[in-house]
């Protein structure tokens, strides 16, 4: 069976990850893939075949309009598999598209393969405690876990342009503002020092941020610190419902290690933890752990790190 795959994301860099998933899949299963863009994104996309959907300015950034545009184009070209980058908007686009096309849909997949007329893949479940094997009959729509595939470089291939026509909208965007990034982007950080409930006062976060600064790393936190205490902006929240990170070193300070937090740090190369509770689950998820009071261990680590550098 020769399959026809579409790769899309509203974020061009993610689209090029999805393109690499589509590339691997179409090579293995036999078939072709097309990278789909919207409005001016063509030059930033990878792949030899590109299709760019042209519409109003509102089309870029609106999951509602993007799903409708994709649906119109897919009804003509009839791809067997539409892969969408699993961002928040991407999941909405995929879900809407699946309903519009009357197809089934699965989200956050990696390890994709096609066999016996079905898309196979893996996905995390139960906050990462389990890994599930998924099977969805073709034709279908699926979202691809962000970061699961390498990024293909943009290609010089010219895109086929397609006018999508007028798109009806049930809602409208009033305002969009960028979230504050902090000093370092957590998603791209090589080293992250992260704070949890073991930190007793907001001022004490200085211990964590000073160590992070000494190590040239970024500061993250578990959900309670951003959500309940409001000590750090939401953008620092690492975990299932926050940011997923993959640094070389993730140092968890005073973090108990609930599944929801660990789900966001699994892809770290080395995980280390400092916690005064020997039975804290974070030690089960760590390569190295120190059982001790963070208020004593962090200053000692700071001293140790400094002495090594001089």
């Amino acid at each position, binding site marked *: 069976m020769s399959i026809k795959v579409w790769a899309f994301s509203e974020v061009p860099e993610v689209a090029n990850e999805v393109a690499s998933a589509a590339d691997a899949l179409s090579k293995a299963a036999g078939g072709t893939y097309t990278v789909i863009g919207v409005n001016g994104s063509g030059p930033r996309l990878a792949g030899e075949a590109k299709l760019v959907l042209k519409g109003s300015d509102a089309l870029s950034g609106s999951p509602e309009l993007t799903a409708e545009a994709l649906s119109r184009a897919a009804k003509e070209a009839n791809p067997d598999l539409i892969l969408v980058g699993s961002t928040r908007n991407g999941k909405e686009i995929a879900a809407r598209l699946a309903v519009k096309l009357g197809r089934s849909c699965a*989200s956050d997949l990696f390890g994709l393969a096609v066999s016996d007329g079905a898309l196979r893949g893996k996905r995390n479940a139960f906050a990462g*405690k389990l890994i599930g094997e998924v099977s969805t009959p073709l034709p279908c729509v699926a979202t691809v876990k962000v970061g699961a595939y390498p990024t293909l470089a943009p290609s010089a291939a010219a895109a086929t342009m397609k006018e999508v026509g007028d798109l009806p909208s049930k809602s409208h*965007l009033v305002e969009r503002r960028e979230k504050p990034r902090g000093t370092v982007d957590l998603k791209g950080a090589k080293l992250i020092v992260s704070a949890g409930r073991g930190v007793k006062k907001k001022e004490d976060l200085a211990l964590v941020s000073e160590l992070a600064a000494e190590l040239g790393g970024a500061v993250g936190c578990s959900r309670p610190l951003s959500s309940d205490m409001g000590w750090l902006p939401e953008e620092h929240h690492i975990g299932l419902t926050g940011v997923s990170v993959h640094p070389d070193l993730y140092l968890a300070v005073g973090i108990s290690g609930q599944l929801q937090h660990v789900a966001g740090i699994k892809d770290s190369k080395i995980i280390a933890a400092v916690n005064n509770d020997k039975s804290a689950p974070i030690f089960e*998820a760590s390569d190295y752990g120190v059982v001790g009071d963070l208020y004593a261990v962090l200053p000692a680590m700071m001293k140790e790190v400094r002495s090594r550098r001089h």
Partner: protein
Amino acid sequence: MKIAVCVKHAVDENELKVDPAGNPQFAGAASKMSTFDKNAVEEALRLKSAHSGDVTVLTVGTADAKKTMKEALAMGADKGVLVTADPMSINTGRTAELLAAAVRKAGPFDVVLCSEGSSDIYSGLVPPMVGEMLGLPYVGYAKKIEVAGQSAKVERSLEDSVEVVEAPLPLVVSVVSEINEPRYPTLIQIMQAGKKPMEEIAPDALLPESKPPSPLFVGMKAQAMARKKVVFEGPPEETAKKLVDALGSEGVLPR
């Protein structure tokens, strides 16, 4: 204001046991209201107290899901609708179809709330599917909802940006956990929850399925946690040195 809130009864991911071969032990596993659904119920109750009206809680689940239904009723929802199907043995699309059909039957509603994803599978697909199936405006990942007259202004929390979106009622909204702090029901509320109306609907009576059920998952295994789990104990100066030494040998500290 007529408010619907869709919830899921889920196996508690923290309590789920795995046998030595890595097989999850779903039979008899502890279960609960999906974590973030409490935020959806809370938001429904806040809309109710600000605009008056009533809250209907809807779920697709087995008989065990009555526990979650009762919890939502104890928190302050007025009535429940249970579509008796096991979400683990049908796929995401069918679950959304059943929820949408149940919302249509129990409605009309001004606002339909969901959480961004369930704490067991966390697919994030059901809320936008329900919105699309109902043909209503859908706004996902809300961290703030303001309803004025026949229109809602919703702040959406995306990865790198915050958007403010306006849409007319009726609409479907999914919420993130930052939106509020869910309340705990009082003992009296818990006792009274059992007296509130709860309707049970068989899925085929609601929306007959033409295709055979196709579960999304063909298998599940424990995720291998291949971590070294080396733990240092002792005086802070010693353990700090051991940790820094270990991280240095791993090559993950800056030189």
